[in-house]
């Protein structure tokens, strides 16, 4: 037991340290505790923001459900949604914590039993899921409970649910993955399985976002429909069927849903249900411990590096024909670094593509689900043409907003320096101009967003049949906004880099700059909304809208250029490993 406590403590501290971006003790002593305090404040602010938004949505939903008396039906849908969230996270956590962790070599020489390592990792995995629950499920449950004025037993049931939900899910996924590991060597084919994991997460997230958009579509018009509908539960039936698509794929989760749905209502089952789930979870946990004793040792002893080294092509080197410009060299090096890493590729570069795909699918489904004859896809050309001809200024701002939003999902610039990690020291020793370094990094994020914008714009103009000159103007203005936003992201990452990571996943997932990147995007969306209002109320023409955008974003770019000139090389002083 002492071993388990000690191991869990170390694993959790390691995780917490990475999360807070805390530095080594010596470094903390050197730089004071300001960085840690800043990190904590930032995390608290973010938590409060997320908490507030989830709370208010759930609060409204709770009131509506209580009013229409369909707490049980909605409870089932929500339970399912929660389980899907936890399952999506658990898949990766179980895979990375139990099967591809790089710290095996650290524990194996110690006098620790396999089952002790397993239990410590189980606890560490649970702690991570508690963190997910804390920011997503807990505020939702709290908001719902307050909105629906649920009784005490429901609250008690919810507490048991929150505490014990991760146990059966982790245990089942562990046993399932352990079973698969008999047939596939995760360590040897790590790249393939990493890719597969990402694919599962992305497909899962897309499915979830599609289902949520259907749900959102329904819930959005719920108030109105409840008043009109004779039988409001029929509405929820439809919603439930759509959510059940996921549940069919993961049929055993329905089992947990059965235990948890009453905590959205109250009564004795509100406590008994989660309690039964907890008992089942504990039994599954012991079963998993038994499994771990039998065959987890084999996984621990698997080499942490690929066992079979790929045969390398014999020396046929591509020699440089001429010296390349430093900006190009930095750009190419950065591009290779991103595209050759599954983690960076999916989390950093492809995020806006995934968002665009999710948005498009959701939009199409929403149109179809709405049943409105005006919302037919065949009406798109005339609708787009009408928008471009009659409301060019508004159309312009909306298109700019769209790319600004997608750019907020592009984390390439926001992790420019973070991705270098400890290598930043070597980069700083190169005789390269600061401007060249920054431009090299700026090009990557900017060009990717610009390509996405180009595709969106081209599609829109082909559908709407707009003039070419307008296409060029829209494109150039959009690129100006993209450059400005990428400048902000790069400078924020330069000012607050997270360099002390050990895995690329940490560099992305535990990097607060990514959240800042998204906040910038949303902040800019607010500015765009103000522009929209100005255009509507002042009835401004297109050229005024273009001027507003170019002046605002041009000023941001100019501001950073002046800053670079003024500060020069001293800007790199923030990059200390």
């Amino acid at each position, binding site marked *: 037991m002492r071993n388990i406590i000690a191991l869990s403590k170390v694993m959790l501290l390691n995780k917490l340290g990475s999360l807070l971006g805390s530095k080594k003790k010596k470094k903390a002593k050197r730089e004071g505790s300001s960085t840690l305090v800043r990190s904590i404040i930032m995390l608290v602010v973010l938590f409060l923001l997320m908490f507030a938004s989830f709370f208010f949505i759930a609060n409204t939903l709770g009131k509506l459900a209580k009013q229409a008396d369909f707490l049980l039906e909605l409870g089932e849908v929500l339970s399912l949604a929660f389980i899907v969230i936890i399952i999506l996270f658990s898949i990766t956590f179980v895979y990375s914590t139990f099967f591809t962790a790089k710290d095996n070599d650290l524990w194996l020489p110690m006098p620790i039993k396999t089952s002790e390592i397993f239990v410590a990792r189980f606890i560490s995995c649970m702690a991570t899921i508690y963190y997910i629950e804390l920011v997503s499920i807990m505020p939702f449950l709290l908001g719902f409970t307050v909105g629906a004025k649920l009784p005490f037993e429901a609250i008690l049931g919810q507490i048991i649910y929150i505490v014990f939900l991760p146990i059966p899910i982790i245990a089942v996924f562990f046993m399932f993955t352990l079973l698969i590991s008999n047939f596939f060597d995760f360590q040897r084919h790590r790249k393939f399985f990493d890719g597969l994991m990402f694919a599962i997460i992305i497909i899962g997230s897309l499915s979830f976002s599609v289902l949520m958009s259907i749900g959102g579509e329904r819930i959005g018009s719920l108030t109105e429909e409840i008043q009109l509908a004779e039988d409001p539960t029929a509405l929820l039936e439809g919603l439930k069927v759509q959510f059940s698509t996921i549940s069919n794929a993961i049929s055993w989760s329905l089992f947990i849903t059965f235990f948890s749905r009453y905590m959205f209502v109250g009564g004795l089952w509100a406590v008994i249900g989660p309690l039964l789930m907890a008992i089942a979870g504990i039994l599954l946990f012991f079963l998993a411990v038994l499994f771990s004793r039998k065959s987890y040792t084999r996984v621990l002893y698997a080499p942490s590096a690929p066992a079979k080294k790929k045969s*390398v092509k014999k020396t046929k080197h591509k020699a440089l024909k001429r010296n390349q410009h430093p900006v190009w060299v930095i750009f190419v090096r950065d591009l290779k670094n991103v595209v050759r890493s599954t983690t960076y590729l999916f989390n950093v570069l492809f995020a806006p593509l995934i968002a665009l795909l999710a948005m498009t699918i959701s939009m199409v489904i929403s149109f179809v689900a709405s049943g409105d004859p005006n919302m037919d896809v065949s009406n798109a050309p005339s609708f787009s043409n009408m928008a471009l001809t009659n409301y060019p200024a508004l159309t312009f701002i909306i298109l700019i907003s769209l790319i600004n939003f997608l750019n907020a999902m592009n984390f390439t610039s926001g992790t420019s320096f973070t991705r270098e990690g400890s290598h930043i020291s070597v980069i700083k020793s190169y005789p390269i101009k600061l401007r060249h370094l920054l431009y090299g990094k700026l090009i990557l994020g900017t060009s990717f967003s610009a390509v996405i914008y180009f595709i969106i714009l081209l599609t829109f103009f082909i559908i709407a049949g707009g003039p070419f000159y307008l296409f060029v103007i829209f494109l150039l203005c959009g690129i100006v906004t993209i450059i400005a936003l990428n400048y902000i992201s790069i400078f924020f990452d330069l000012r607050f880099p997270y360099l002390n990571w050990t895995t690329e996943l940490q560099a992305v997932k535990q990097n607060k700059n990514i959240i800042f990147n998204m906040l910038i995007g949303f902040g800019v969306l607010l500015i765009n909304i103000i522009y929209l209002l100005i255009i509507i109320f002042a009835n401004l023409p297109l050229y005024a809208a273009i001027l507003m955008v170019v002046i605002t974003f041009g000023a941001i770019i100019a501001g950073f250029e002046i800053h670079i000139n003024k500060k020069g090389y001293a800007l790199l002083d923030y990059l200390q490993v």
Partner: protein
Amino acid sequence: MITIKNVTKIYGKDFKAVDNMNLVINDNEIFGFLGPNGAGKTTTIKMICGITPISEGEIFVNEHSIAKNPLEAKSSIGYVPDDPNILMRLTGYEYLNFIGSIYKVEPFLLKERIEKYAKTFDLYDDLNDRIENYSHGMKQKLLVIGVLVHNPKNWVLDEPMTGLDPRSSFKLKEMMRAHADEGNTVLFSTHVLAVAEQLCDRIGIINKGKLVFVGTVQELRKMRQSGESLEHIFLELTENA
């Protein structure tokens, strides 16, 4: 030539990692930096290379101030960090091409040097493999080749022998000697006293941010006037300073 003038490095409010250091490392010289862990060796090296800003004082590399003319100063430095885990996603050859472009090495010369040094360090056949698949020693060799291909006047090597096999280590030591004999400067840090004794023209012992000794190994022995081993002298110096 590297000149360190009244250099102090302060972290946070008052933690002095390097305290008022004065040192001149001449051309034709191999200078070894010795000291216990956390003494300030790497911080000094990082300040020389322009990686860490200097709190007080100035450092000149070939008469270019690293703070005021960083590009000119850095152009004549070849730096090998203590951590060889760099640019893991690139292949060895891509890394060396990258270095060639950054340091503006003529392509034909770059190709020639890559071949020469990669063969010298027995890395030629692995250059098309990604760095992430290299062993620690191979990464270290690649970093050393990265310095050699742009042929800088000043070599600044932070524990360069770590992870090298005996043959490569021997070759590197030979190259360091040859480079210094051609009128250049070699500064390196090490924990291995025997290497310092065998290779260095002068050594500097640093402890708690202060240079406690600068001179030749013979001078050090003479100063102590005892038949003690270098190891004993080193331990005494770094214990009581």
